């Protein structure tokens, strides 16, 4: 068992220690009125620079990253985050630019913004993009606002409902609610695809739109997508594409061609920007021609050889202080220019090949609820032989012992023991074979020594956690410990 580094930065504090080097100006001291100033300083740690460096190096080693090992987390597209992206996105000429500089002093950044919009348009088949949304869920919110603004402009204000399949990501219904819509959930087919009859039953002149992920959260392409988009459009609704699973389609199909009016794209999934332990991400929102005027402010335009910040005519408004997470879309830009048109088409192919290879190699021992070819990911519904009571959670935890990250578990909700596996295109056959072998080992252990699996993990720095205790006796800050 590995040694647990269990020190908090506050525990290292020694009065008087500092970790910065700064030359004071020695100007006159300003005294603010006493009723406007804080009475006691914040109890921040007092530590040296080396204390901080060693502490956070130790803390980092308690984490599993994409570079540590295979990270088959379904729906999250944990692909390699290229080093050149990090290097080039953080050079001084980008990092040191104030967002309120005059346009002519930030033409390079505006050009990157513009060209990234253009490339995303070409790849997804939508007319125009804004890079302003900060994350996937933020892009969803932007897209729903656009749907609402569109219907409001058409004086069609009875359209208050958004249809969401029950296989959708949780953010879909939550975003619709935040945007002031009522959510109509429809039951999916057994493979998570849209049940066309269920869809027809809820279509009416109160429907503002349908939110859809394609391929869906079970890794299945919506084969009826053209009929679905026709039905929604005939009913006067708009089609929203949740781009979480776009990776599968690279080189093969465009959401715009399928009839989607609005998309968001997760740059931190398909376009290789790092997840950062939960953010910052970036969720550009794209629209078809008739919705361009509703994009969030500001938009970047090109006139002749120069780039400009402008306000869209019927914009939904501002979604953030400035122009989105620039440090993230700079990385996506570098990625796109590294792959180029001749390589990007292989991304979808190899991601799908990898997923099918794992699926076919393990379906004899894991329960495969959806037969046939999958896209970039697929779902197992637990072990085929569940007689010893070993569940998906146990398998996930046991994988950690073997140095693999667990798949996404218990999502999608349409299966009880979901284990959603997404290898991405960057993993070699060798890596996949290693994973397959360990999955078979764990399945064997589940029969021969179920307790070993049910009590996993055994080798991680901490083992299974008491989550109930964390809720019942909340300790949410250092002072709560003392």
């Amino acid at each position: 068992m590995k040694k647990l580094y269990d020190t908090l930065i506050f525990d290292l504090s020694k009065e008087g220690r500092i970790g910065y080097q700064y030359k004071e100006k020695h100007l006159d001291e300003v005294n603010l009125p006493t009723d406007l100033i804080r009475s006691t300083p914040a109890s921040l740690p007092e530590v040296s620079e080396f204390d901080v460096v060693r502490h956070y190096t130790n803390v980092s080693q308690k984490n599993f990253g994409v570079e540590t090992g295979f990270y088959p987390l379904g729906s999250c597209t944990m692909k390699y985050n290229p080093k050149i992206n990090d290097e080039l996105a953080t050079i001084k000429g980008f990092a040191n630019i104030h967002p309120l500089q005059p346009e002519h002093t930030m033409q390079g950044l505006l050009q990157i913004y513009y060209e990234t919009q253009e490339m995303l348009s070409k790849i997804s088949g939508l007319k125009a993009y804004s890079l302003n949304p900060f994350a996937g869920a933020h892009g969803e919110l932007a897209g729903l606002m656009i749907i609402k603004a569109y219907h409001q402009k058409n004086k069609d204000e009875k359209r208050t409902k958004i249809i969401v399949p029950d296989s959708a990501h949780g953010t879909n219904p939550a975003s619709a609610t935040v945007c002031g819509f009522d959510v109509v959930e429809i039951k999916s087919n057994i493979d998570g695809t849209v049940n066309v009859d269920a869809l027809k039953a809820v279509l009416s002149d109160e429907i503002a739109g349908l939110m859809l992920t394609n391929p869906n959260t079970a890794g299945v392409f919506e084969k009826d997508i053209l009929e679905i988009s026709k039905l929604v459009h005939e009913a006067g609704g708009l089609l929203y594409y949740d781009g979480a699973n776009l990776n599968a389609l690279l080189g093969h199909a465009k959401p715009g061609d399928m009839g989607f009016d609005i998309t968001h794209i997760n740059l931190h999934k398909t376009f290789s920007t790092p997840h950062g332990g939960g953010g910052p991400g970036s969720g550009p929102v794209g629209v078809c021609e008739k919705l361009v005027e509703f994009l969030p402010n500001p938009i970047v335009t090109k006139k002749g050889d120069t780039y400009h910040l402008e306000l869209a005519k019927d914009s939904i408004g501002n979604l953030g202080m400035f122009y989105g997470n620039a440090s993230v879309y700079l990385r996506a830009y570098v990625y796109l220019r590294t792959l180029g048109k001749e390589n990007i088409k292989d991304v979808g192919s190899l991601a799908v090949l990898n997923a099918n290879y794992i699926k076919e190699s393990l379906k004899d021992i894991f329960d495969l609820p959806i037969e046939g070819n999958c896209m970039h990911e697929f779902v197992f519904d637990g072990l085929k032989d569940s007689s010893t009571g070993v569940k998906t959670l146990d398998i996930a935890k046991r994988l950690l012992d073997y140095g693999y990250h667990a798949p996404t578990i218990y999502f999608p909700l349409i299966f009880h023991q979901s284990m959603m596996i997404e290898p991405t295109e960057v993993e070699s056959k060798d890596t996949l074979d290693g994973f397959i072998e360990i999955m078979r080992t764990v399945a064997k252990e589940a029969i021969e020594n179920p307790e070993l699996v049910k009590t996993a993990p055994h080798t991680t720095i901490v083992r299974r956690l008491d989550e109930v205790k964390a809720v019942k006796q909340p300790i949410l800050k250092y002072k709560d410990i003392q």
Partner: protein
Amino acid sequence: MHKYLPHTNQEIKEMLDKIGASSIDDLFDKIPKSLKIKKDYDIPEAMGDDELTNHMHDLANKNQELLIFRGAGSYDHYTPSAVKALISRQEFLTSYTPYQPEVAQGTLQYIFEYQSMVTELTQMDVSNASMYDGSTATAEAMFMAHAQTGKKEILVSSTLNPRIIDVIKTYAHYKGLTVTLIPEKDGITDVNFIKANIQDKMGVIVSNPNYYGIIEDYNGLADIIHEAGGLFVINQEGQSLALLKTPGELDADIACGDLQSLGIPLSFGGAYIGYLATKQKYVRKMPGRICGITTDVDGKRAFVLTLQAREQHIRRAKANSNICSNQSLNALAVTIYLSLVGKEGFVKFAKESLNGAHYLYNKLLETKKFEKVYDKPFFKEFVLKANFNVEKFNSYLLDQGILGPLQIKDDQLLFAVTEKRTKAELDLLIEKVVNFK
């Protein structure tokens, strides 16, 4: 072959054999023929590494790095170099949200440390794991006030940064909430307007310092708002928390704002980081992730995401917010920054900003080229009225590599001075002003 795509032709063949498909295209059999892409995307061809490096440097050179005296929500601060080095570690940079806590104790621990520091800074009971930026954090604070009180109208001070007001208005409009602006009086929030209009409102949002850099006096405001059953929200940027009376001391219910000034580069306006902190009694209305402490089966201390019953992946359409991430890596940057500058440096830098801003303010007035607009206490930003052509002035400064103040209306200019500006730089600006014709 491509450096990010490791498959050899032989391996592809073996994999297809295992699957029982004759080609990769066969795997895409569910995509209708009419939807299949027939030619390459209309995007540029791949660039070699050196070519791309040169290209990016060329683009970077089309941006001008300037000596900055402008703020308005984005501040040019000193950041110790250890911050960037540490957040670049792949274990932090490339990991996902800590859904498997046994192998994500690193992320969870620094979120816990971050929350601890934010509660120290604000003197609030509890902080979440961070929000997108200061503006969306403020909009989410409005949603919290709505969820808590059930009321639909909020009072927002006109002295907030107009960009934040815009975001609040966008969020409110689509959610069906009403934003009523509190007029400003001589650069500060008109408290009499609040007194007269607070009934039946979900609460009040003010900022400190306000858009003009003025430190407003919010003593006693909490009582007025609480008596009417509303929530008191203070938007405050990071560095000012070192000096000003804290949201906790002012009995605010929610503290929010941007922490960019604590270790995050200017970076064209993003990615930044919003914070959100509240009183214990409102924690279940708080959006976003929260990290807590528990024990594992062996009794060891461990960190874990907690109180998740609030969040979208559980509550779906009933959630108060749709956020499903945080600005985690930037929360780490802030945590490392605050550790390095520490208890003493945090206050020292705020004072250096304060002193520098006042030095510049007084010297500019001495040139007789400016007049006072407000005569109120201020922190690191201030407004002066110019006795000359403002556009000409700023382009004159730009020609000399200086980003001058932001023109906020007619002849009024908003200056910002941070601890990063040396006395020589301040004197340089003053000299330029003196020489400006």
